[in-house]
């Protein structure tokens, strides 16, 4: 009985449905019903978190949730919760809750909230779907759904700039989707299956066709993951409201791409196969280049969110790089960064949003003296920034350390150099901001200051970054504790890599 309860595959559907139903409900609600909408949204987010926690526990116990039905001849719609899915699902459900709360505060008194929160929930539903997808096809389904549900968020403000960003976003991502589809169709024609399986489903000798399929798949995913030549949309998309950027960069879009690459490499091609076929090293090189490229570009940005966006380009490639190291430790590093980068980057975007919303500050050179004015936010930002640099004991350090060891294990010492160079660059573009926050005195008034009473800003806006910043510290300091990202990543790798 208890066993059955835990193993109930409808948990999967419910986890998906919480955000999907919330989205529908929100679309239906009239614009003025703010209270009800907020309650619905937060309630759904909390419920989803609970469901995911239950599943995480179940997966930890060794259970595997699965649900499938046939859509087309030979094509199944399949939801499956394995350890890797739960990693991503957990991230998205936790951050959904926080981001929703943040967005409630951020969009106070702005129009079109019904639309915004509806698509926001839809976006999260897609992310959950991506996490829980049991085969490549289902993955693709939610992947495209994500593309579409994010577009209204990107163009939410409706300004010319936002629309332009939206256009470029949609051009990039849909093209990526198309390329991915081509790869997927070819893969199916070639192998007759789209399933995910630990160790991969591709068998036999490496052939040029398989290599081409790999390139197509990775190129398709690389658009969302903002791999080097395909990254152009990401910096533009930062015109979206801060919660959207936060979600985009931390959980949804960018991560979906990275997660997809992880899936393709580890569960479709199989790391061993891909490595033998010589597919991973070029990708690792590309990821390494992206890491450096993103960081260098970030140096030259004066807009805070833009700089963060380029930082994301750089950071997300850590994940890909980790997977491409083709070793257990590298994979741990890549996977753990999936979570770490999410939490760190969301903190940074929350804070950037707070500066924009409370002080009207968008540019970095306007930030002078923001630290004393908004201490909690600035502390959170500082923690996030140091996390990104990879300073111990913060989350980013764990990543970098694991990745570094992984690259040495894989006999690719140049990766260490890349990591270090990237850290230096990270420091070069984050530390000046931190410096301005704390060590520059404010000489003139803030561009657009809003007073929110006793606290430095609205409490909806204040708590999410504070909580995530605390999380950044805790998951770094207590990295060895069970259920920490690191431990979970190790669990994943143990199950995936040595099935």
């Amino acid at each position, binding site marked *: 009985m208890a066993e059955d309860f835990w193993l109930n595959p409808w948990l999967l559907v419910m986890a998906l449905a919480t955000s999907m139903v919330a989205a529908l409900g929100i679309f239906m609600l009239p614009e003025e019903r703010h209270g009800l909408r907020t309650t619905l949204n937060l309630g759904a987010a909390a419920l989803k978190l609970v469901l995911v926690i239950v599943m995480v526990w179940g997966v930890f116990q060794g259970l595997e949730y699965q649900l499938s039905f046939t859509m087309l001849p030979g094509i199944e719609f399949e939801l499956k919760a394995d350890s890797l899915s739960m990693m991503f699902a957990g991230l998205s459900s936790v951050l959904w809750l926080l981001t929703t709360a943040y967005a409630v505060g951020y969009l106070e008194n702005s129009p079109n909230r019904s639309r915004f929160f509806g698509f926001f929930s839809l976006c999260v539903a897609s992310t959950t779907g991506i996490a829980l997808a049991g085969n490549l096809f289902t993955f693709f389904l939610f992947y495209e759904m994500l593309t579409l549900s994010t577009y209204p968020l990107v163009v939410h403000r409706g300004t010319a700039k936002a629309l332009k960003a939206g256009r470029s976003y*949609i051009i990039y991502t*849909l093209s990526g989707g*198309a390329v991915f589809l081509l790869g997927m169709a070819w893969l199916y024609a070639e192998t007759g299956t789209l399933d995910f399986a630990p160790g991969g489903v591709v068998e036999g000798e490496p052939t040029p066709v398989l290599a081409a399929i790999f390139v197509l798949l990775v190129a398709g995913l690389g658009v969302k993951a903002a791999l080097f030549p395909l990254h152009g949309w990401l910096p533009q998309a930062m015109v979206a409201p801060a919660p959207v950027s936060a979600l985009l960069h931390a959980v949804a879009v960018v991560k979906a791409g990275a997660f997809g690459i992880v899936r393709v490499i580890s569960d479709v091609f199989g790391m061993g196969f891909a490595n033998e076929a010589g597919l991973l090293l070029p990708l690792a090189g590309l990821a390494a280049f992206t890491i450096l490229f993103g960081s260098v570009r970030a140096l030259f940005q004066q807009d805070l969110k833009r700089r963060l966006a380029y930082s994301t380009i750089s950071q997300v490639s850590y994940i890909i790089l980790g997977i491409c190291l083709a070793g257990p430790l590298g994979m741990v590093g890549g996977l753990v960064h999936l979570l770490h980068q999410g939490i760190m980057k969301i903190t940074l975007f929350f804070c950037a949003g707070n500066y924009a919303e409370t002080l009207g500050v968008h540019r970095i050179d306007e930030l002078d003296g923001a630290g004393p004015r908004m201490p909690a936010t600035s502390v959170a930002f500082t923690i996030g920034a140091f996390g990104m640099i990879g300073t111990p004991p913060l989350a980013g350090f764990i990543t970098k350390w694991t990745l570094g060891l992984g690259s040495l294990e894989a006999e690719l010492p140049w990766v260490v150099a890349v990591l270090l160079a990237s850290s230096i660059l990270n420091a070069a573009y984050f530390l000046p901001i931190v410096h301005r926050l704390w060590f520059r005195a404010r000489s003139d008034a803030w561009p657009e200051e809003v007073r929110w009473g006793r606290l430095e800003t609205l409490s909806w806006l204040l708590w999410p970054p504070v909580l995530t910043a605390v999380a950044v510290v805790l998951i770094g300091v207590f990295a060895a504790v069970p259920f920490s990202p690191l431990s979970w990543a190790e669990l994943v790798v143990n199950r995936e890599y040595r099935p």
Partner: protein
Amino acid sequence: MMAWLMAGLLFTPLAWAVMSLMAGFRAGWRLAWLGMAVQGLVSVLLWLAIADQGGFYYALGDWPAPLGIELRVDGLAVTFILLTATVATACGLHAGVYLDPDKPWQRYFWPLFWFLWAGLNAVWLGADLFNLYVGLELISLSAVGLVALGGAGDALRASLRYLLAALVGSLFYLLGVALIYGQFGTLSLGGVAQLAEDHTALAGAGIALALMLAGLALKTALFPLHGWLPPAHGIAPSPVSALLSALVLKASFYIAARLWLALGETQGSYGVAQLAGALGAAAVLWGSWMACLQPRLKQVVAYSTVAQVGYLFLLFPLTWQVSDQISQQAQEGMTLQVISHALAKAAMFLAAGNLVLSTGSSKVEDLAGVGRFLPFSLFSFGLAGVSLMSLPPSGGFAAKWLLLQATIGSGQWWWALVLIAGGLLSAAYVFRIYRASFQEASGQDDFHHPPRRLEAIPMALALLSLGLGLAGEPVLAIMGLPFEEDG
């Protein structure tokens, strides 16, 4: 039971056409409710019956082919009949609210609507070449009548253009039929196919096939013969546009496809197959590109139809002398494309009608701000767009997937590129609309709010087309039923 169903199926639309001619618009609408209910019920029952027992030939007047006219009642036909019932019902319900009942000419909407429905059913079931011609004319003339109904200069010009094109197309088809009859001595499609198999590569039959296919391509608005479509579909009232784009075009394509599957293998050639595919591909690209340039909302949707129809013609190269499995995949893909495009395009036109009604302007650029005001219709539009873009889980995606598989399986990879590019281009025009409606700069704020029901219908259709991909397996299973050769 089956006799009753068939009788009901054939009788209802024609009878309702007669009855509603006697009534005014409002009475006709009330009548239409009943008719749609009956027709819907009959369609569903027939579909279930076929799913249960398999297909059969229905000899009209009890005269079997080749002397009499037989109807071919198989899984594919009943699926299309059910599709017709769905889309037509939706359009009818929409029209009942959408059209202005006080205009004197609107009373003639219902008879024409029912005749159109009857014609569609006749084509889906037809297995006699000449009977198909009459069915096509029934459809064409009622469609032209619908476009022209109460129309002013532009509408008349569009409908005239439509009429001329449709008639020329029909005549080409008829000339082909004449040659076929001269060649094979029978008009029954089954009989012709049988004979063609025994006598391959008859020069005359090949030319006849070319004539028929070309005529049907004109009626289906295959590039570069599509010039008549955008004016007609763009200018008709939205429910009519929906009917035309969703169903009417498919009728002529359906005939072409059946002809090709029956005769193509023996009387066609690689070149013809590739040419049809190439024109289809050109249609996909050109139609999408033109859709991106149109200033008017409904023209955008109309050009999107031109593009989507292009996909259908990929059936020709993908079924010509390939393995059964690939041919099967291509046919399934084509069928799903027909269905999902019908649902999605109907939804899109109806939603576009709502948007036009709401903004009071047919221009794309005047949509600014409507996203805030009419999110529901816009959302329906978008959902339909998802299917047109062939994104999962829509039926459009399922279709594209099957076509892709057939493409790769048959080694004709170049069509895969078309499929992919077409999806992207359709995204371009769908998002163009979205972009316009998300614009906040406009100062306009006076929007007319259409009734709720008008918004619900496109949504239902869009959801259907979206859900089709999820239910692709059962739908295809019925289409692929083994056909019982008893006629």
